[in-house]
C-alpha cells in the first residue's frame, strides 16, 4: 500500500479535511487562520468555500495544495495525505491563486506554452488541449496579444486556461471572480460548470461574494477560521423560507424605516433594497407582529430567501450581538433640490486612452450616490478627480461649489475621504492616527478633544486605542478609517469600495452609520463593484469603459431589465443587460 493511502470510501472523496489548524504571527498578535476545520467534499461537484476576507480561505487552499504545513490536523486528497506525499497530491490537483502568475510581457500563446512546458505536457497532446482551452475561454482570437494587454476578466480566463493545461482531478480556484466584471464573472462560472459536467473534474472555489454560493453544488461556510456551515446551498436558503419580506412605506424615509426595523425585537436582519427595506424575521415571527410605533400603513410583501440571509442568521446566532441602536432623525425635508456634486462632460485621458470619456451626473444634498462598475470601468478615476487627486483633462466638476483640484486647501475641509483598503498609518496606534487626522483637519482645543472622544466612543475603539493599527482586524481598520474621515464632520463623504472583503455584519454596521449620516444631510458618494451594495444607494450610475451606461435608482435600473423570462431581475442582471446592449450598439456602429 502506498504511504498515506487509506483504504475504503475516502479514496473517492476529493477532499477529506480533519481538525485542520494553522496559526500565523501578525505583528504582536497570534492569528488563528484555521481553527480545527473538518470537512469533506464530493467528487464531480463545485464546492464553494465561502467567507469574508480573513476567514481563512486562502490558508485552507494553500494547505490543500501542500504549500503550507498545518499546525494540527490532516488533509487527504483522493485518499492521499498531503503531508505524507505532497508531490503525489500536487500531481492530482491544479491550484489557481488569487493573483495568478501570468507573464504580462508574453503573449497568450507564449503563456500557454510556458505552462505546458512547466507542467510537462507532451508536445503531441498540446494542439488539441490548446484548441479546447482557447475555445472554452473564448481567447482563441487573442493568442497573439500580450497578456498584460488583456482585460481583468480575460486575464482570469487565461490564468484558468494555464491552470488547466494538464487536466487535474481536483481544481482549486482562489477567488477567481474578485474584481472581475459581471459579464466575465458569468463566463468564468460557465467554464467551471462545463469542467465539472463534461470533464468530471472536482472543483473547490473560494469566494467572498455570497450570491455566488447559490451557483455551487455544495458550500463550506468559513468565518474567522471556523467552519460554521456545510451542505447544499439550497438547504441553507430553504432554512430561511417564509422569513423574508419587503417592507414599504411610500412617502417616508426608507432609511428611517430601516433603522427602526433593525432595532425591533424579532428582526434578524433589515437592509435597504432599492425603495424597500428587506427584512428577515426570527423563526415563527409573523410580519404583522412587527411593532413599529410611528410608522403606520406599511405594505408588506413576502420575498424569496437568499443565501446571505442564512449567513447573517448564522453569524447573529454565533455572536449574539446586535447593531447598536442609532435613532435616525428623519430629514426635515426629504430630497431638497440643492445640488452638491455636479459633473458634466468629464474626460480623463492617460496618453491616448480615455479612462473617463465624457460623463455627466449630479448628486443632491443628503443623497447616497453610487458609482458602480467593474475594475477598469473608470469609477476610481472619476472618484479621484472629484476628490481633487487628479486633474481632469476636460469637462466641468464641482463638489460643494468647488473644483477641488484648483480650490484653496480650505475647501477640502468639507470633504471626508475613505480610501480603498482603509489606508491609514499602519505603524501608528489607533489614537495616534486619530490625533493626526484631527490636526490635519485643523481641529483644535475643545472641539478636537470632543471629536477624539466621539471617535473612540462611537466606533468602540476605546479599548483598542493603543493598538498598532496594522495589527487590527479588518473590521476595526474599516471603523478607524471611517472615524478618521468623519473627524471634522464633513458635508460630503467619499467612500472608495468601503466594505470590500468585510463580513456581512460589519457591512451592515457600516451602512447603518452611513444611513444616519445621509439622513442628517451629509452627501455620500460611494464606488463599488459589489452589486448588493448598489441597492443601498438612493441613485447610482453604472459605468463601463469610461462611460455611463445608465443612471437612476436601483429599482428603475432593474425595472428596465424586467421581462417575462426574468420577472425578478437582480442588480447583476440589470448590469449585464446594459453591457450587452452597449456592446451590441458598438458593433452596430462599427458595421
Amino acid at each position, binding site marked *: 500500500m502506498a504511504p498515506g493511502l487509506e483504504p475504503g470510501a475516502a479514496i473517492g472523496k476529493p477532499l477529506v479535511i480533519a481538525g485542520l489548524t494553522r496559526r500565523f504571527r501578525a505583528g504582536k498578535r497570534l492569528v488563528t487562520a484555521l481553527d480545527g476545520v473538518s470537512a469533506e467534499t464530493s467528487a464531480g461537484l463545485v464546492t464553494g468555500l465561502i467567507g469574508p476576507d480573513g476567514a481563512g480561505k486562502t490558508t485552507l487552499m494553500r494547505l490543500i495544495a501542500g504549500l503550507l504545513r498545518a499546525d494540527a490536523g490532516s488533509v487527504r486528497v483522493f485518499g492521499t495525505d498531503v503531508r505524507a506525499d505532497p508531490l503525489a497530491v500536487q500531481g492530482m490537483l491544479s491550484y489557481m491563486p488569487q493573483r495568478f502568475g501570468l507573464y504580462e510581457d508574453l503573449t497568450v500563446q507564449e503563456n500557454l506554452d510556458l505552462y505546458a512546458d512547466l507542467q510537462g505536457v507532451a508536445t503531441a497532446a498540446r494542439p488539441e488541449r490548446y484548441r479546447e482551452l482557447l475555445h472554452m475561454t473564448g481567447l482563441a482570437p487573442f493568442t497573439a496579444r500580450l497578456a498584460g494587454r488583456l482585460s481583468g476578466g480575460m486575464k482570469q480566463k487565461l490564468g484558468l486556461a494555464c491552470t488547466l493545461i494538464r487536466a487535474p482531478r481536483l481544481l482549486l480556484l482562489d477567488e477567481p471572480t474578485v474584481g472581475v466584471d459581471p459579464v466575465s464573472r458569468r463566463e468564468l462560472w460557465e467554464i467551471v460548470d462545463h469542467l465539472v459536467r463534461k470533464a468530471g473534474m472536482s472543483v473547490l472555489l473560494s469566494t467572498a461574494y455570497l450570491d455566488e454560493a447559490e451557483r455551487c453544488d455544495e458550500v463550506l461556510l468559513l468565518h474567522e477560521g471556523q467552519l460554521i456551515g456545510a451542505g447544499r446551498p439550497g438547504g441553507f436558503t430553504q432554512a430561511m423560507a417564509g422569513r423574508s419580506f419587503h417592507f414599504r412605506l411610500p412617502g417616508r424615509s426608507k432609511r428611517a424605516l430601516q433603522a427602526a426595523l433593525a432595532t425591533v425585537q424579532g428582526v434578524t436582519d433589515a437592509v435597504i433594497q432599492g425603495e424597500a427595506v428587506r427584512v428577515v424575521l426570527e423563526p415563527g415571527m409573523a410580519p404583522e407582529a412587527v411593532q413599529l410605533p410611528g410608522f403606520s400603513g406599511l405594505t408588506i410583501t413576502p420575498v424569496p430567501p437568499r443565501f446571505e440571509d442564512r449567513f447573517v442568521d448564522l453569524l447573529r446566532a454565533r455572536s449574539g450581538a446586535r447593531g447598536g441602536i442609532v435613532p435616525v432623525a428623519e430629514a426635515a425635508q426629504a430630497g431638497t433640490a440643492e445640488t452638491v456634486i455636479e459633473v458634466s462632460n468629464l474626460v480623463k485621458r492617460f496618453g491616448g486612452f480615455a479612462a473617463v470619456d465624457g460623463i455627466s451626473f449630479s448628486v443632491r444634498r443628503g443623497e447616497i450616490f453610487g458609482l458602480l462598475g467593474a475594475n477598469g470601468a473608470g469609477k476610481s478615476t472619476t472618484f479621484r478627480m472629484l*476628490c481633487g487627486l487628479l486633474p481632469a483633462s476636460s469637462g466641468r466638476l464641482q463638489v460643494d461649489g468647488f473644483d477641488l483640484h484648483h480650490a484653496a486647501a480650505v475647501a477640502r475641509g468639507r470633504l471626508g475621504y475613505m480610501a480603498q483598503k482603509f489606508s491609514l498609518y499602519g505603524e501608528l496606534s489607533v489614537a495616534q492616527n486619530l490625533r493626526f487626522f484631527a490636526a490635519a483637519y485643523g481641529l483644535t482645543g475643545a472641539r478636537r478633544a470632543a471629536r477624539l472622544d466621539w471617535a473612540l466612543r462611537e466606533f468602540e475603539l476605546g479599548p483598542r486605542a493603543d493598538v498598532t493599527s496594522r495589527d487590527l482586524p479588518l473590521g476595526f481598520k474599516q471603523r478607524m478609517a471611517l472615524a478618521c474621515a468623519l473627524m471634522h464632520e464633513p458635508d460630503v463623504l467619499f467612500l472608495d469600495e468601503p466594505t470590500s472583503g468585510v463580513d456581512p455584519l460589519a457591512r451592515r454596521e457600516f451602512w447603518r452609520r452611513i444611513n444616519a449620516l445621509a439622513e442628517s444631510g451629509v452627501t455620500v458618494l460611494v464606488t463599488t463593484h459589489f452589486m448588493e451594495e448598489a441597492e443601498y444607494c438612493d441613485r447610482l450610475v453604472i459605468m463601463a469603459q469610461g462611460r455611463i451606461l445608465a443612471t437612476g435608482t436601483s429599482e428603475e435600473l432593474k425595472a428596465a431589465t424586467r421581462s417575462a423570462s426574468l420577472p425578478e431581475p437582480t442588480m447583476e442582471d440589470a448590469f449585464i443587460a446594459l453591457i450587452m446592449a452597449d456592446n451590441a450598439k458598438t458593433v452596430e456602429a462599427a458595421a
Partner: protein
Amino acid sequence: MLARLLALVIKEFLAILRDGKSRAVLIGPPLIQLIVFGYAASFDLNHVPFAVYNQDHSAISRDLVADFAGSRAFQEVAVLHGPERIRALIDSREVEMVLDIDPRFSRNLLTNQPAPVQIIVDGRNSNTALLILGYANSVIADASAAWAARHGAAEPPARLEPHALFNPNLDSHWFIIPGIVALLTQIVTLLVVGLSVAREREAGTFDQILVTPLRPLDILLGKSLPGLIIGLAEGTVIILATVFWFGVPLNGGLLQLYTGLFLFIAAVTGIGLMISSLATTQQQALLGAFMFMVPSIILSGFATPIANMPAPVQALTLVNPMRYVLVVIRRCFLEQPSFSSLSLDYAAMAALALCSLTAAAWLFRKRVV
C-alpha cells in the same frame, strides 16, 4: 498652520520610530559603516610582504635587508637565490615588492661609488606601488645617512626635513574618519526622506493626506523637517564617535561645523524629496537614492582628491553638496577655520539647498496635484 506642521512632524517620527525596519535603517547601516571605515579603511601600509634577492652576501647588504625587515611597513616572506622566481612571486601576489641587491653593492660602497639597489614592485595597484616606493626610499635614505655618518663620507648636499602640519604623524585615519560624518549623514538623510513619500504612496496614506486641507507646502515641510532633525542627530552621534572612540582631535569650532552640516543636510533633504516625488514605490526610491549616492561619494573627494580628476569631472563635483561639507568637516577637525574662510563652501551648499528644495517643491506639486 503651526499645529498642522507639528502634527505632520510627529506623525513622521512615529511612523519611523515605531516601525522596527525603519529603526534598523537608522541604526544598523551607520554602525556597520562606521566600524568598517573606522578600522578598515586606511591609506597607510603595514607589513608589505617582500622577497629578498641578495646577490651581495655581505654584512653590509644584510644590514640593509634587516633595516627593511625591521621596519613596520615591511615584512620579509621569502629569500631568493636566483632571479627566476621574482616574476612568479609577484604574479601570485605572494609579495608586493622584491629587494634586489646588486653583487657590486658592498664593493661599490666601500670604494665610495654609487651602490645600486633595485626595487621591483607590483604595479597593478598604482597607488599602493607608489606608497611602497616611498617607504622603500625612506628606508634606503636612512641607511645611506647612517652609513655616511659612520664612515665620515660627505653628507648629501641637500636634505629633506619633512614636517606635516595639522596631522604630524600623517595618520590617514584623521583624514578618513571625519569624512564618514558626511558620508553617513548623507545616507541616512537620503533614505529617510527619499523613502517616506514612496512608503505613503504604497500604503495609500498619501492620497489620504492630500484630501485634507493640508497644503502641498505643509506636506513638503512636514517631510523635510524630520529629515533635517534625524540627519543632524545622526551626524552628532558620528562626530562623538570620531572624537571619543577613534580619538581624532576636534580643533575647530562647533558652530562652524554645524553650520556646514546643517546646510549640507538641507541640500540632501531637497535631493531626497526630489527622488521621493518621482518614485512611486519604495523600491524605485531606493534605487534612486543609490543612483545619487554612489557618484556623489566618488565625486566628493572622500577617497580620491578632486584635483586629480579631469577638468569636466571636476566641474561636475561643483554641484555635489558632499564636496563642500567634506572641506568644512575636515577643516573643522584639523584646523581652526574662521567663518569667513569657509564662506565659499557655505554659500555653495546654501545655493544647492535652495535649488534642490525648490526643485523638490516644484516636482512635488506637479506630481501630486
